[in-house]
């Protein structure tokens, strides 16, 4: 049975439709990223799944239960990291974990959670004295203290520095390795690529794409040849020159062998060093931008 079932979901605020006819399912143990620009409907969707909002139309089930009628037993099976940090600054990390641990039937040991969130050295530090990244890890600790089957992560790394993001990723990877189902919303495509096995792109309240990160990249268009041009290069054939912008050749290629042969021939004739030449599918970012800008509505 699917961990999440969303069917024909609609959510309206007055005359505005934030989510329209969204349908998808998430299998148990799967890590799914929900992507989309601001206003795409991803936070509305996740808040409906968490039980905070009621849908206008459609049906939603999380772990076989309608979130709006999910009682204590259902709440004990899910964990949440909300979009903004939400902690009592006066408590220490251990006190907060112990407090939340008392609510669950089989809480993790405090030491285990502290290890998982990499905060054992700060166990007795008051939350108000922690950095933003450390507080976010406490948020995650509170979400996992009850050993949830389903974890909702709403932009868990927004505002964190690169090192803090990487540390949080590694915590999430540890959890997903243990089989926890995760639904993640994020603005960072590298985060989706790194953590998720499936990406659902929302645009204007619709599902614009639903695929693996690699499928999404592959569907983003033809392969791209890119090369940062060294200074003072000789003139190029017009077939190449038309793809140069900001001293960089970015050439979508329908026939990589032919286009590469042309580039290599020009480089050999003019003694240009091709170090840095790259050939590959469009990045996830390119694919995502293409989907969200062009309003592509078909499933990949």
């Amino acid at each position, binding site marked *: 049975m699917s961990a999440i079932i969303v069917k024909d979901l609609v959510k309206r*605020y007055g005359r505005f439709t934030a989510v329209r006819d969204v349908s998808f399912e998430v299998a148990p143990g799967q890590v799914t990223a929900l992507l989309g620009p601001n206003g795409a409907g991803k936070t509305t969707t996740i808040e409906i799944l968490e039980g905070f909002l009621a849908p206008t139309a459609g049906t939603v089930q999380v772990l076989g239960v309608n979130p709006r009628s999910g009682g*204590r037993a259902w709440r004990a099976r899910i964990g*949440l990291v909300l979009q903004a*940090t*939400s902690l009592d600054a006066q408590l220490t990390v251990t006190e907060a974990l112990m*407090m939340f641990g*008392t609510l669950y*039937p089989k809480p993790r040991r405090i030491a285990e959670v502290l290890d998982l969130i990499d905060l054992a050295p700060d166990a007795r530090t008051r939350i108000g004295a922690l950095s933003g990244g450390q507080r976010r890890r406490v948020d995650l600790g509170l979400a996992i203290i009850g050993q949830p089957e389903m974890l909702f992560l709403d932009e868990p790394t927004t505002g964190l520095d690169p090192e803090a993001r990487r540390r949080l990723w590694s915590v999430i990877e540890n959890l997903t390795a243990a089989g926890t189902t995760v639904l993640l919303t994020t603005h960072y495509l590298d985060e989706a690529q790194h953590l998720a096995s499936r990406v659902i792109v929302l*645009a204007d309240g619709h599902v614009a794409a639903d695929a693996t990160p690699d499928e999404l990249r592959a569907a983003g268009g033809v392969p791209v040849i890119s090369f940062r041009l060294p200074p003072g290069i000789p003139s190029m054939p017009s077939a190449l020159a038309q793809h140069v912008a900001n001293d960089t050749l970015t050439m979508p290629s329908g026939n990589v062998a032919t286009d590469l042969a042309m580039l290599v021939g020009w480089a050999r004739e003019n003694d240009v060093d091709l170090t840095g030449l790259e050939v590959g599918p469009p990045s996830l970012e390119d694919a995502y931008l293409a989907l969200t800008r062009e309003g592509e509505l078909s499933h990949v």
Partner: protein
Amino acid sequence: MSEIALPSHGSVLVSQVRYQLTLLMRNPRAIAAGLILPGALLALEKGNAQHITMTQAAPRIAGLVAFSAAAIALFTHTLGLVTAREEGVLRRWHASPLPAWAYFAGRILATMLVTAAAGLILVLVAMGMTGVHPTAHAVVGLLAADALGALALAAAGTAITALIPSVQSAQPILMLVYIPLVVLSGAFGGMASSLPHWLNTAVTYLPVQPVIDAGSRALLHGSGAIMSGHDLAVLIGWIAGGLLVSFWVFAWDPHRPAHARQAEARTTARSA
């Protein structure tokens, strides 16, 4: 769904009370407004007087105990709730397996315990400063009235949170409620002779004067019924009314101002 045995309601309530007590005891506002300020006022009132009779001391002690109760159970409790709501702490609790009633019961019980503890400390300070020696029964009676008043004030404060949109606006709004309430109720001495009759009557229906009256009566008489039927009915009315209104209007989620909702709608419209 697999069968799971959730922790009992009793154990959840005990841990909530412990949690809320920890928060209150680490809240400098609760300590300053609920204990230090009334203690300092007590010292100032005593001034240079060498000896004060129980008849003189009882209304002053009861007034400052009620002032302390209002500071903790109305001002600190309400401001703390608004802050927790706006910082998303309440939303996290609401998303957890904690029953909603247990959150409020834990918070209000902890507020009553801290209010009673502050009341006891004030009585001990007053005994040391003024030389009056109330009986144990008198002190218990005073503290019982104090705790009941705290329950009424906390229930009213919980309902008031629906009218407070942000942490920034909480302090001025609560000041406008709290200061007139304690002053007009006579926490710093009787104002009855200088107030219009209608206002004197109105004050008897607010939740501070019954605490002062009952506290004074307890200190003076020591035992027996310390609270009049009218005062008891007023406090019970505030408790029932506050909790009932809270049940209907209390919000767990941060308040989103109208301009933010409009901006969000515009973003959605632009992306369409």
